[in-house]
């Protein structure tokens, strides 16, 4: 379920549940969680059964159990949209935050996070980006002076051939100066990225990781 990779001189552990763990700093990273996306849909008259947020929280629980991180860093878009009094997901997320009160949690604010007061969940919100040498944690995958960028936003995906068929899978993508995490949320789509020289891609399936070769 895990795969180790060296980025900017640091060893990182990728996990098939679409998360990245940095042992040296005991930091668990995920991107593009989009809590409450189902609720936004339902309010607009699109029938998505509730359950997406519970699924995502359960996966986060598992990851926190596995790695026991000091810090959980979310690289943007923790929530999808605003909530109303009927949005049960907010209470679920609060309860989840209380369960893991010993873990520091921080969010690099993404474009979706402006719809909701994430700080009210007990999560430290940082606008822009954050230097944690040798990395720069960000939402948008842009180059930064003085560090290797780890970011989200793109929801990278890749098509992997399997005999006579193909699977489109979420993927970790590491370029020379920028690395992108797959979207963590259940209700998130994929944006295809190319397999090209100098780019390391690791595809994530529910049952394990697949490092792509050129």
């Amino acid at each position, binding site marked *: 379920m895990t795969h180790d990779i060296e980025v900017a001189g640091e060893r990182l552990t990728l996990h098939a549940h679409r998360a990245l763990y940095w042992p040296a700093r005991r930091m668990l990273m995920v991107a593009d969680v989009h809590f409450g*996306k189902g609720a936004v849909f*339902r309010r607009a*008259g*699109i029938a*998505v059964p509730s*359950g997406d947020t519970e699924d995502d929280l359960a996966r986060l629980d598992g990851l926190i159990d596995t790695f026991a991180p000091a810090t959980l860093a979310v690289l943007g878009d923790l929530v999808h949209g605003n909530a109303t009094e009927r*949005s049960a997901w907010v209470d679920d997320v609060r309860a989840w935050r209380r369960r893991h009160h010993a873990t520091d949690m921080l969010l690099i604010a993404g474009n979706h996070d402006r719809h909701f007061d994430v700080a009210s969940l007990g999560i430290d919100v940082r606008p822009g980006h954050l230097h944690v040498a040798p990395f720069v944690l960000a939402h948008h995958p842009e180059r930064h002076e003085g560090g290797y960028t780890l970011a989200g936003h793109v929801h990278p995906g890749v098509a992997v051939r399997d005999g006579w068929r193909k699977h489109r899978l979420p993927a970790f993508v590491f370029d020379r100066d920028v690395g992108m995490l797959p979207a963590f949320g*259940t209700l998130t789509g994929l944006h295809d990225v*190319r397999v090209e020289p100098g780019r390391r891609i690791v595809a994530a399936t*529910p049952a394990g990781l697949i490092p792509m070769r050129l």
Partner: protein
Amino acid sequence: MTSAAWRRAEARLVAWFATQERRPAPFQRAAWRAWRDGRNGLIHAPTGTGKTLAAAGGPLIDAVLSPQTGLQLLWITPLRSLATDTAQHLAAAVEAMELPWRVLRRTGDSGSAERAKLRRGACELLVTTPESLALLLSYPDARERFTRLRGIVVDEWHELIGNKRGTLLQLGLARLRQWLPELRTWGLSATLGNLDEALHALAGDGVLIGAATKKKTIIETALPEAGERFPWAGHLGLSQLPRVLDAVLGARTSLVFANTRSQAELWHEALSSVWPEAPETLALHHGSIDPKLRFATEEALRVGALRCVVATSSLDLGVDFASVERVVQIGSPKSVARLLQRAGRSGHQPGMPSRILCVPTHLLELAEIAAARHALETGHLEPRRPMRGCLDVLAQHLLTMALGGGFDADAAYAEITSSLAYANLPREQFDAVLAYLQTGGSALASYPEYQKLVQTDGRYHVDSGRIARMHRLSIGTITSDGTLQVRYMKGARLGSVEESFVSRLRPGDKFLFAGRHLELVRVRDMTAYVRASTHRRGGVPRWMGGRMPLSGELSDELRLTLAGGSGGTAEMRALRPLLAVQDNQSSIPAIDETLCEATRTREGDYLFVFPFAGRLAHEGLAAVLAYRLAQMRPGDYGYAVNDYGLTITAARMPALDAETMRRLLHPWGLRTDIRASINLSELARRQFREIARVAGLVFNGYPAQGKTLRQLQASSGLLFDVLRRHDPAHPLLWQAEREVLDQQLDYSRLRACLLRVARSRLVWHETKRLSPLAFPLWVERLRGGIAADDWKTRVERMLASLEAGADA
């Protein structure tokens, strides 16, 4: 009304015919009189024989006898582009009858002035599409608008009957009949194999009226010359370019029909590279090209400014183009009715036969052409079956009813089951759809915040203006999910291509689209921006679901033809050398035989079966057969199909003979095995796209409405996964699985095919080399297979193959 008064009014119409040196045909008079008697009916006749006036005459005479204002006659047409023409044609007839009628047209691209006029009720005759009718029914004052309506005419009913647009229309008609029990419903149709059923679906009961004039159709074939090397497989047929060019240049205007959009693009490209005349006299027309460009091509065709148009079925129907002298069909038409329809695009002068030149793309298609000609001579045409019980269309319509005045559940159920499309709908399914609209899904799952329909005092209605707006924007059943607009940097639109094609390109890459060489500049906001490219190279987009299966009627004829039933046609004489090879290496199946072949090649073992049941049924059969083989001997089995048969390949096949094959092909346990064999959920996931959109589960906002709506876009695939996990009893999941069985795998045909195989004599050959029938299957891409299928095994397999690739 007195009979004399009717005759006087009818005389006005006859006099107008006379001014054009024509006389009403007997079938036209018969239709007028049937209307007078208050009957419904279906008029079937080839294009260009006066069906429009046959249907319009009755209501026009009626209107002269008892004049009224307000909407009197509704004219439904499947194509927006036809609406303009039909409206003009009808307006001329209205004028000739000296009626003070206002004729309006309302389609998706009507201007706001036209719409405003319509809202004021300012017309007596309205020409519109099924979707626009559904939209009209979704306004609260829908019932008042239609109080004066006397009749409905549905044009080109054969184009609607077999699909969900036809289902939607049936529901709309049921609605109107509920309000207006005296309403008369008439349809116009090309010849079909099931006219009675077509009438029943449209009007319940009525009269069938056919034109007696039987137009002659001549099918010619571009035969290979003696000694010419002609391919055994393939479907592009570009080697026939010189023959097609000769044929096209020998006529004033030609239509060249291809079977897929990619094939049309490539043929247009090939013709333009050798085109001796002005480039603007050659054009391309297919369904992914922007409507404006298509209309421009149609207009140029109408005024005779074009020498040749390469087209797909997008030009199968529509207005008649008088200048067309020649029709060329590239490859087999795959259906007798389609061949007849395409041939009918030529020779519009009365008394002239329709002519079509068929150009085979590989040798065996010669037999298909001979078979099609024989089928046509014996009137063996395909039926078009109405779809039954589509829950997605029902969901859409119930929301329309809720907006258009609200409904009571029992009355709505009675009204909906009065249509043929839902005649057998169980009440539980109706209630399940109602529950989906009211609470989001089945009782098993929870959908807080969701309420599309609300119930007050027993009546269902919609409370939210936002839901009403979104519903009206997404009315209709044609999907365009997953496509990107293609437009020039300067802004002109060219059409749309599938997202998966564009995602493989990067800026600077060249491709061929809409007959132009283009270079991708950038992709933004669901739009691929392009500029003209000077380089003539690059890929051609492929669109999903392009290839039609060989029809059942044509398959039957083909088996007869190959077995020697239709005598010595020129096509079969040209095919004789190939058939001799087949007979030598294996055998040619007689009509009561099923041929199986096994060949051992370097890449592995191949099993071939030739049921001649069309590619869809073969796909289901291949999956079942691979599954049954895997029961005999575990392993990975891949398969490929074409219209003649299927092949299964494995590194090592179990030992087979005629007796084993007979057991493997037995129909017993088919339904269980097909569920076990095909990854139904994976197929259903693909089918779910359209269903989700029709039922309003996903919403494709309009690009102009910006980001707020884009935030709501989710891929139907994701929704499918979430529903399966959290609400497996959802009615739309059930609909998706049923559509996979009925449409993608053609279950009823598959079953009939296996029953036939069980009765036939099974012929078994182990061949040293691939036979001419086997070869085209061998070169087909593998379509699917049977393999262990949880994610764990998949990951192991993919990792292993990546390792192997790295070592090589």
